[in-house]
């Protein structure tokens, strides 16, 4: 045996028993450190939720949801913001869903794998990384100013739709890619056209995934403040939107407005209560997505 091999340290993981114990102890210590690091995130979540609940729960009441914003904290509510969110997000989904799924189908089922398709794909993933405030500026330049829509629901929804599109496209592509090739080949084998294959076989199989991805993208849009702030949602608006071309506010904007007020009732009462309502809406959307996926995927297995 060579002297080199017995020399501890010259071979990466070879050591004397004392060194070995040292290494094992270090491993145990680091294990705890890794666990602690992971817990920091969870701890932050707990502290954040606790702070919000502790301050906001006493302010939760029925008239928080039914009243319009007011200068008097006891009477202030977020009814107009809730309706504004419903208007903007429904419209966002109506615009972004068909376009996003269409783009995903094109990229997965139709587009030849050329350099152009690849460029398109890279472009979409880059769009997903553009800060949301930049989408706001795009909306401000194109929808509010150039198309002269003004500070209305439609401008907010169009901006949000552009923001959600890359996420919807990417998640729909993943869902479509997960459909087994044999399904397509069987359909082509009996003479179906490309669209028939997509319409009757690929889409139904991919639908649970597509829908979940869309709901998640849309629920992310619900929490977005910056783009709607830039395209002109007001922090104080005391009526529900009457239509697509009416002024509006949304839940995060209302929270933003209340947070910026100097009075304690707004800052440490209504704002956290508003956050609870916002988080409840998000939780509802996400649970809906999960349940929908489970039910649909069960059915498609039958």
């Amino acid at each position, binding site marked *: 045996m060579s002297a080199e091999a017995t020399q501890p340290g010259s071979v990466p993981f*070879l050591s004397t028993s004392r060194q070995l114990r040292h290494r094992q102890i270090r*491993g145990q210590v680091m294990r705890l450190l890794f666990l602690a*690091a992971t*817990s920091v995130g969870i701890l932050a979540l707990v502290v954040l939720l606790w702070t919000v609940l502790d301050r906001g729960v006493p302010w939760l009441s029925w008239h928080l949801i039914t009243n319009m914003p007011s200068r008097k904290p006891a009477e202030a509510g977020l009814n107009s913001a809730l309706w504004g969110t419903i208007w903007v997000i429904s419209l966002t989904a109506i615009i972004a869903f068909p376009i996003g799924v269409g783009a995903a189908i*094109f990229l997965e089922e139709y587009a030849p794998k050329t350099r152009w398709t690849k460029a398109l794909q890279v472009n979409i993933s880059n769009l997903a990384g553009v800060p949301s405030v930049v989408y706001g*500026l795009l909306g401000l*330049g194109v929808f509010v100013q150039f198309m002269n829509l003004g500070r209305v629901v439609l401008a907010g929804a169009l901006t949000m739709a552009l923001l959600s599109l890359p996420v919807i496209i990417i998640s729909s592509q993943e869902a479509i890619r997960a459909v087994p090739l044999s399904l397509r080949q069987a359909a082509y084998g009996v003479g179906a056209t490309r669209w028939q294959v997509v319409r009757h076989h690929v889409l139904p199989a991919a639908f649970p995934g597509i829908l979940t991805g869309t709901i998640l993208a849309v629920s992310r849009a619900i929490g977005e403040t*910056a783009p709607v*702030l830039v395209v002109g949602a007001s922090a104080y608006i005391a009526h529900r939107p009457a239509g697509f071309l009416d002024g509006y506010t949304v839940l995060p904007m209302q929270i933003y407005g209340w947070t910026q007020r100097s009075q304690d009732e707004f800052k440490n009462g209504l704002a956290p209560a508003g956050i609870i309502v916002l988080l409840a809406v998000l939780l509802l959307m996400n649970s809906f997505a999960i349940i929908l996926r489970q039910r649909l995927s069960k059915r498609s297995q039958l």
Partner: protein
Amino acid sequence: MSVEAAVSSDPRSAEIAQALRGSGRRHGSERVIEILLGACAVLSVATTIGIIIVLFEQALQFFRTIPVSDFLFGTKWTALFKDGEFGVIPLVAGTLYIAALAMVIAIPLGLMAAIFLSEYASPRLRSVLKPGLELLAGIPTIVYGYFALTFITPNVLKSISPATAPYNVLAGAIAVGVMVLPMIASLSEDALRAVPRSLREAAYGLGATKLEVSTRVVTPAALSGIVSAVILAISRAVGETMIVALATGSKAQLTADPREPMQAMTGYIVQVLSGDVARGSTVYYSLFAVGLLLFCMTLAMNILSQWFVARFREEYQ
């Protein structure tokens, strides 16, 4: 034997012939559908071009009054004052300072969490911790902003250092760090998990401890994925808006003291649009100049991140 001959021997030949004749029309509508779907995909390119045109066009209006060099290299940003100066350096410094401090928190914690989740955690523990981190990632940024302004600053930082200003860099940086932590953790974990088992087993076979396997074999093998995750996280931190708008204040100044307020680029955009701004004024156009710079910075980082994965990825069979 031709198709027609085969068909005519079938009792339902008339029906089938009908179907075959209809296939001309079928091809026509197929084409229409393909074009429609293609148009959907092209819309994404249109969005990109739209962003670039809008930002450039409006920024150009701004650069008519303020020379590009004054904007890029000026060290004084007093846009909302009378005869204000538009030197973007304080805003860029604010953005980068906040992002850097956020990374000091998020990179070590995120990476350690990724190693723990991928290498150490039992499936049961993982099934608790992972959804927890995902929940953290799903919290809207306005909530983080609220938390930074009304909890981190008054309840945490002020009790450590009473000299902390009500709006300060540190509170924003902590909140941004916590916000991007799940992103680093989850993307790095994906990269670590993609390292083949055989590499780990080989290292164990040489007598390595779990720590040595994790940090000296698995982590280096997944490095391209980890670096790309970190770059993406920096890009997110730079583009983050509501946290810095709420927590770090609207004083554009150059300072090294994290207890002081500093305005970020995104914070400036929000500040201007929260008030009334006259369309067509220099301040209005300055939004797009700042936005253009922000867009270029994040785009460069996103491309760098993709390049990193493509260039340095370790391929295993």
